[in-house]
């Protein structure tokens, strides 16, 4: 899987690259408009992360060109500007998603994988790990082929962990992903811990060969047993 990161802030670009490489993606980078235009039309990428404000030009112009070439469906816009206008324009030009800076790397992982899943749809409606199979379409979990009932939030948590398997998922990123804008108070309580505890119990009861490890008050990591 080949991913292009178009981002002018080199430090951010490097972090994104490093994080995506941990997921075994092949990552290339571009730091300005011209370099980006060159790469976009010379190579084929499975996913393009596109910053809107670039030296020498706008990311939206790149997106426009991509749309004309019929290649805009695998673009995720990453912008410091949380403007409705840009979002609407970007999505109209065929971008798949819009992510506002600053974002969590775990969230970026999840979004990239969602794009890749949509791009390579064939039979890929589920994620599997060990004896687990999580079906996005039906929102069900199968362990050893047997259905395990999960409530909506538990499903979302497990899904997020599976998209970030073997990676540290911090509490904030998890809370923001599952509870959205209302998660800003979650840090003040052992709220996330409580939710994880319930999910752990369910996974243990059905004999799943995965484990959600705690990492020192920072977050959690899903690993195969």
């Amino acid at each position, binding site marked *: 899987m080949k991913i292009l990161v178009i981002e002018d*802030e080199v*430090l*951010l670009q490097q*972090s*994104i690259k*490093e*994080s995506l490489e*941990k997921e075994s993606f092949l990552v290339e980078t571009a730091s300005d408009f011209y370099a980006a235009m060159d790469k976009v039309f010379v190579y084929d990428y499975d996913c393009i992360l596109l910053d809107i404000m670039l030296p020498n030009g706008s990311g939206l112009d790149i997106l426009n060109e991509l749309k004309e070439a019929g290649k805009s469906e695998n673009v995720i816009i990453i912008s*410091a*500007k*949380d*403007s*409705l206008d840009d979002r609407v324009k970007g999505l109209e030009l065929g971008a798949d998603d819009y992510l*506002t*800076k*600053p*974002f*969590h*790397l*775990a969230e970026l992982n999840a979004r990239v994988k969602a794009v890749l899943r949509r791009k390579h749809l064939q039979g890929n409606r589920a994620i599997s790990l060990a004896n687990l199979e999580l079906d996005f379409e039906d929102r069900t979990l199968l362990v050893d082929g047997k259905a395990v009932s999960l409530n909506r*939030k538990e499903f979302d948590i497990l899904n997020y962990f599976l998209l970030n398997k073997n*990676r*540290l998922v*911090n509490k*904030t*990123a998890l809370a923001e992903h599952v*509870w*959205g*804008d*209302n998660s*800003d*108070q*979650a*840090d*003040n*309580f052992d*709220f996330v811990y*409580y*939710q994880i505890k319930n999910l752990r119990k369910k996974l243990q009861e059905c004999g799943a060969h995965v484990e959600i490890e705690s*990492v*020192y*008050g*920072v*977050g959690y990591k899903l690993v195969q047993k």
Partner: protein
Amino acid sequence: MKLLNQSLKYLSLSILMIVTIWSVIFYLNMLSEIKSSIDEGLENYKRLIILNAAEDSTILTKKYFDESFFTIQEISREQALSTKDRYFDTELYMQDADDQAPEVEPVRMLTTAFEMNGSYYELKVANSMVEEDDLIQELLWDVVWLYVVLILGVVIINNIVLRSLWKPFYDFLQQLKNYRLGRSKQFPEVRTQTREFVDLQEAVNTLLKRSVATFEQQKEFIGNASHELQTPLAVVSNKLELMLEEESLSASQLENIAEIFQTIQQLVRLNKTLLLLSKIDNKQFLENESVAIHEVISVNIEKLIDFSTFINIAVSSSEMEPIAVQMDFSLANIVVANLLKNAIFHNHEKGNVNISLKAGVLSIANTGNPNPLDVEKIFQRFQKFDSNKGAGLGLAIVKAICELYGFEVSYRFENGLHLFEVNFNTN
């Protein structure tokens, strides 16, 4: 004190002074005029008496003032020669036409001397004079009347002339009072040709323009600053996330980095909130649509139910009258979510929250702090009533959104409950 009354005060004081001084001078002048006219009369009498005495010598023996107003007395030549005509005020015991009995009356008297047939005589002629106290009384009343009439005149002139002259000023003042920085589109305007008022308008408008420019700059600055902070925050945040994944770190290093990371997350949230506030202030939300508030409420209760059950807060809703409001959907969502979060998180153990929507008024009542909160401060930015619970911007945002749409938002403490209300009815 109003300008109208001020000018009335000064005018009536100065008129009182002028009228007083004028009436004293007038009185003195009149008195001397009266005296000189009486003196002329006395002079006439004198000549008539001397003429009559030449014909009728009995007159020369008239020694007392009785029925007539003169006395004649023979004197020596030396005495006569040393006598000069002398006019003076004195009093005589006599009966006037308006007196019941004879009484002492003020008179003007002339003493003179004349020679007749070799004999010398002294002549005293008297003429009754105006009684001064009567004159003063009469005059005083006239002056009082004059004063009253003058003041009445001034009041009427003040009311008609000044009122119409100052009307543009009061109009202007009213406009200025209603002017809201950043919200009023038109500058106050004075409708007159009066130069002072036109100058005032120019001065005020120059000042307002400068304030508006400063206001806009400040708004822009907050927006730009928060915006520019997004990328560095993203860099730091993502670097820390990668660092936390490093296997080689010791437990204590991990914990330290985790603390830094959490702090950065607070900063990220604060910055996002500031950006939101700046967007509201800059009216960047204008996607007005019909928003069903009751639906927004139930969606938000649902979203927050995980949190409220976790901390044992009972959220209930009573009386949900459907209402649709023209506003930006995401802002409606923020208003409801912030008020709900506020009620849930600033609560005590096993507390409760009650929500109602009646006649376009959203009321959220919650238990919590047993004392009322400071109404003046509660909607201000960065006001925290609980430590470690957010940045104190939630209610400020609610207030900003409500102001944007003209909704009224209020807080009061009633029966031990904190009650927040938003009135979605705009006039």
